[in-house]
């Protein structure tokens, strides 16, 4: 840009800032800038749009095609309409997986929230080495899931593993954590809570950090008990963050593959098969592409609804 334009630009802007200055010049300047901005915005957004179309848009459309066709990974096959969806929706395996996904999600969301909330409250007060504990408690979330599932396997998989041995030595029998269907479901859920609570802890800690502590002093002067302070002050103040973290965690739990697959592979006897694991196995182990993609599609539609609700909520609360 030449120095003349710069100077005139500067002059116009100055005039524009001055109260009662001539209206046309700053307006022109603004529209010139906004035309330039529109052009720049287009180029800045382009790589993102291309990737979104390639990695999200195209696959989603193609998935819709696959879900309505028979065939396999190599050939799309013939159009069969809603037949794949019918097959899926009438199979007991789908409903069993849906049920497990529901429980897994409920326990995952509220379990990790309760643990995260408790720890966030504990860590809010001044504790010796509090910062160190905060970082250490993030480790379950930071350590790769392949690593932690390996460790959990070592701890619980066989009757001679550390934790079953502990139970035996305490005279409580030898629980088969991954071989018994009920125990395996519980183990996977506990593992999920172990992996996820740091995320909740971070979310709640961030929300708590913005709370003005003088509110509590005023409340305790007014004779509010600890429990009243918690339910009347703390919970409402972290409500928005809590709500957002619940829905995010719901999305994380419904979509979760490795936590379940690496620990149990979906077994024993499909007891821990979630919808994602079922979709994966239907496509890549049973080679039934249509039904597998149909399962993924049903999940997708559910999650679109959930995330649109969340998006609205975020927009609403950021306007307030």
């Amino acid at each position, binding site marked *: 840009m030449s120095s003349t334009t710069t100077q005139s630009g500067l002059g116009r802007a100055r005039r524009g800032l001055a109260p009662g200055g001539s209206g046309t010049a700053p307006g022109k300047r603004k529209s010139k800038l906004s035309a330039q901005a529109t052009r720049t915005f287009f180029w800045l957004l382009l*790589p993102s749009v291309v990737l979104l179309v390639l990695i999200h848009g195209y696959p989603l459309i193609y998935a819709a095609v696959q879900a309505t066709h028979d065939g396999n990974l190599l050939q799309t096959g013939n159009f069969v309409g809603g037949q794949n969806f019918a097959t899926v929706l009438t199979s007991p395996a789908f409903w069993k997986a849906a049920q497990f996904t529901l429980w897994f999600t409920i326990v995952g969301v509220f379990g990790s929230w309760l643990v995260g909330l408790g720890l966030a409250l504990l860590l809010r*007060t001044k504790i010796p080495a509090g910062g160190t504990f905060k970082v250490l408690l993030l480790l379950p979330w930071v350590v790769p899931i392949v690593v932690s599932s390996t460790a959990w396997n070592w701890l619980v998989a066989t009757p001679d593993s550390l934790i079953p041995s502990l139970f035996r030595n305490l005279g409580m029998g030898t629980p088969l954590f991954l071989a018994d269907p009920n125990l395996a479901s519980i183990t996977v859920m506990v593992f999920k809570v172990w992996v996820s609570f740091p995320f909740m802890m*971070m979310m709640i800690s961030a929300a708590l950090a913005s709370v003005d502590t003088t509110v509590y002093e005023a409340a305790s002067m007014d004779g509010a008990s600890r429990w009243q302070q918690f339910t009347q002050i703390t919970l409402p103040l972290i409500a928005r963050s809590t709500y957002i973290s619940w829905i995010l965690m719901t999305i994380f739990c419904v979509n979760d593959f490795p936590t379940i697959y690496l620990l149990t592979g979906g077994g024993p006897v499909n007891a821990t098969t979630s919808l994602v694991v079922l979709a994966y196995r239907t496509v890549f182990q049973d080679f039934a592409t249509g039904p597998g993609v149909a399962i993924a599609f049903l999940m997708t539609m559910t999650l679109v609804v959930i995330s649109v609700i969340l998006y609205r909520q975020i927009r609403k609360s950021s306007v307030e």
Partner: protein
Amino acid sequence: MSAVLHAHPESGPTLGTDAGKRRKTLSEAGQRGRWWRFAAILIITGIVLVPIMVTVLLAFTPGPNSTATGLTFENLSNVFSKTLAATWLKNSLVTTLSTVVVSVAVAAPAGYVLSRGRSKAVSGYSLLLFVMQSLPIITSVVPLFILFAGMGLVDNLLGLTIIYVGSTMTVATWMMAAYFDSIPISLEEASWIDGCSVFGSFTRVVLRNSLPGVLSTAIFAFLLAWNDYLVAIVFLRSNEIFTLPMGVQSFFQQNATDWTSVMALAVVMMLPPVIVFAALNKYFSVGGIGGSLAGR
């Protein structure tokens, strides 16, 4: 605060013993509370970290066929000399670092538009990104598998990287946009007045002041790419193309009894994210993804 102190400079001494006593008991109660909490958090942290401590301990414990005693680096050196661990580590590093760089390069400009643009199209795109990040990756994996197979991108680190960039860019864009929101537009206006173009003010003013935002986005992309298992298990076929998660997993299944070697490789795999987090934790402490989504 200081005004109060100045108004009653003598308040401490004149109130005398009674107030002093009360303050003492209060702080004593605080002290006791602190130690009670310290003990609680110590025990909880201890229990929570058992799986990680077990991993580290086993990694340095002599294996079943070893003559070594005490803690040893033997498992680590064995894993690197006798398996493809070095190749897996290299594959993981290459894929993850490319993902981080390209994700930030795509997400930062897009995030800037999301933050500064005030049109229907921009907010529509914002919603689209948000919905896409919540969809199960398994839905796109099957069509992408077919598309990439035709392009020779299956069993290929470039193919893996493209998918990682695609799946990180949605949240990464939101994270960048949330950070840019915190940079006052008046800073840019000053640079426009000085004759800077919109692109110029983005790179020279906004981006230059966004290191914490860029770092937290980079950490997010790093964790996602480094930890991914689902995309890797679908797209990687041959041993020498494996990334570390696939390596650990293949190794674990083949040598289920040789726990010490598995754990040695597991420690190698968990070290980079732990180091990144320990070093850059403060940039992520706002709650990471959640924080940036909540912040908008």
